[in-house]
């Protein structure tokens, strides 16, 4: 690996474990090879890395583990194309190249002292998991916490088992976990879209920060419900995705916005506030 200050140089990381989560989605645990990097590397919830598969390409992936864990990180990756197909073939012991972390991440410092409501749809739980883990690791810094995890079917609910397993701790810690599906008649639990469960959250709308992640079409309904339920629009955050080649504001693919508001999703985002979103056509 390069020792120069080339910003596109990669850190070598070893794959330690590969879990199958749901169909086409795997969770991979990595460790930095270089001890100095392992020691010094830090990230914020909501940031992402650029992951390289040699000879195939590079893709942006959100970090989905708690930033509190030094030297290790987890990525949750859906198989959708050339690079991610190959990532799914990785075995423990294999190497990949990683650079980052990039992006602004969620303003977790600002969240301190408030309630947290995390709303995920589809594979949206991947980036939100890092916020959740961070909040659990720093439990004393936050008020009540609710996680709404939604999917079409029971077996496409990302991190379902992990969240279920936390139920006891959650009870004790004032954390509410709501898992809901929209199209699964055999699912024994809650049904309906994510926004239909906002009313079941244990958070106080007056003093809650909301983080949302999901496919673009869910945002409008979620926002409307949140606002109807008196959540403060200034405290709603979403994390977005775009085509990206560099992750550091050079390649231009993720530029979005209007002529008065030009943003690079990779460095000005991927986390954006509600007002950014509504004043910028095309951001979602």
């Amino acid at each position, binding site marked *: 690996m390069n020792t120069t200050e080339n910003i596109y140089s990669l850190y070598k990381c070893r794959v330690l474990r590969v879990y199958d989560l749901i169909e086409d989605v795997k969770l991979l645990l990595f460790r930095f090879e270089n001890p100095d990097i392992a020691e010094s590397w830090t990230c914020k919830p909501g940031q992402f890395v650029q992951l390289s598969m040699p*000879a*195939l*390409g590079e893709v942006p992936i959100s970090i989905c583990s708690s930033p509190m864990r030094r030297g290790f990180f987890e990525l949750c990756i859906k198989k959708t194309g*050339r690079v991610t*197909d*190959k990532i799914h*073939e990785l075995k423990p012991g294999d190497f990949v190249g990683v650079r980052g972390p990039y992006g602004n991440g969620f303003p977790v410092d600002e969240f301190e002292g408030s309630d947290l409501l995390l709303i995920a749809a589809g594979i949206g739980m991947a980036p939100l998991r890092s916020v959740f883990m961070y909040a659990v690791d720093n439990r004393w810094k936050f008020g009540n916490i609710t996680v709404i995890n939604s999917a079409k079917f029971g077996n496409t609910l990302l991190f379902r088992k992990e969240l279920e397993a936390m139920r006891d701790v959650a009870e004790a810690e004032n954390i509410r976990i709501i898992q809901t599906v929209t199209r699964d008649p055999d699912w024994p639990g809650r049904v309906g879209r994510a926004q239909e469960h906002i009313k079941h959250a244990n958070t106080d709308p007056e003093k809650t920060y909301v983080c949302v992640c999901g496919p673009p079409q869910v945002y409008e309904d979620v926002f409307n419900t949140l606002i109807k339920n008196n959540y403060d629009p200034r405290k709603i955050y979403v994390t977005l995705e775009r085509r990206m080649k560099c992750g550091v504001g050079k390649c231009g693919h993720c530029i979005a916005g209007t002529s008065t508001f030009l943003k690079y999703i990779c460095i000005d985002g991927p986390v954006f506030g509600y007002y950014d979103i509504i004043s910028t056509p095309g951001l979602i």
Partner: protein
Amino acid sequence: MSDTMKPKVGIHGLTSCYGCQLRMASVQEILRVAQRFDIEYWSMLSSDGTIRHVDIAFVEGSVTTMADEEELKAIRENADVLVAVGSCAIHGGVQGMIFGEEYRKVFGEIYGNCTMDFEAKIAEPIHKFVKVDHNLPGCPPEEDEIMYYLATFAMGSYPEEKDYPVCAECRRNGYPCVLIERGEPCLGPLVVAGCGARCPGHNIACFGCRGPVPHGVAWFDSLARTFREKGMEKEEIKARMEIFGRQYEKMNEMIEKVFEHED
């Protein structure tokens, strides 16, 4: 991939000028290619070959006879991945210019009443008959693209296909634009990149041999409008655009649209 797991390939030709196969056969690194794959079928180069199961089949040429059609179906059935190679396979090729009724007429005119032992058909691209997984465009394809495609397949992956026009390469190479400068009917804006804008680089207007840009971003209408403004007639425009674009479904409709308000 270890040596024992070499991907198996078949290279086939239907009706064409055989340039794509020749181009594949004449890449500089042909011996390294031969080492990296098990070439199960390549009748142009080897008398040892029947259609057997392969990982990747490359098919050059358009379907112009019943025998072509049958052969193509057999190739598809025996291949995990099928790659259409070149303008004939992808777009029907220059022979795809004659269509429908016109075809019957021409055939009669040439072979007269002589009854032939084999049946000939309108030349059509192979995707009309079988599922195509990847396209390797060109007339013939360029060496670097052939090598890139082969190398990605060899790695168990697949290539990223280009979806932008020749103009992009023309400009990157700093060639003077013959359409702007001399009003020549350059088809560069319509045609999928990959050749490095060879013709404009030789002071010759691109005549579209690589075929239209895929995914519906070949703007026949806009270019027809531009040509009209340079003084070309509708028929002239069609005659030029159809050489490699005749089987592009919306070509005629798109050109007509531009001239609608005129006549």
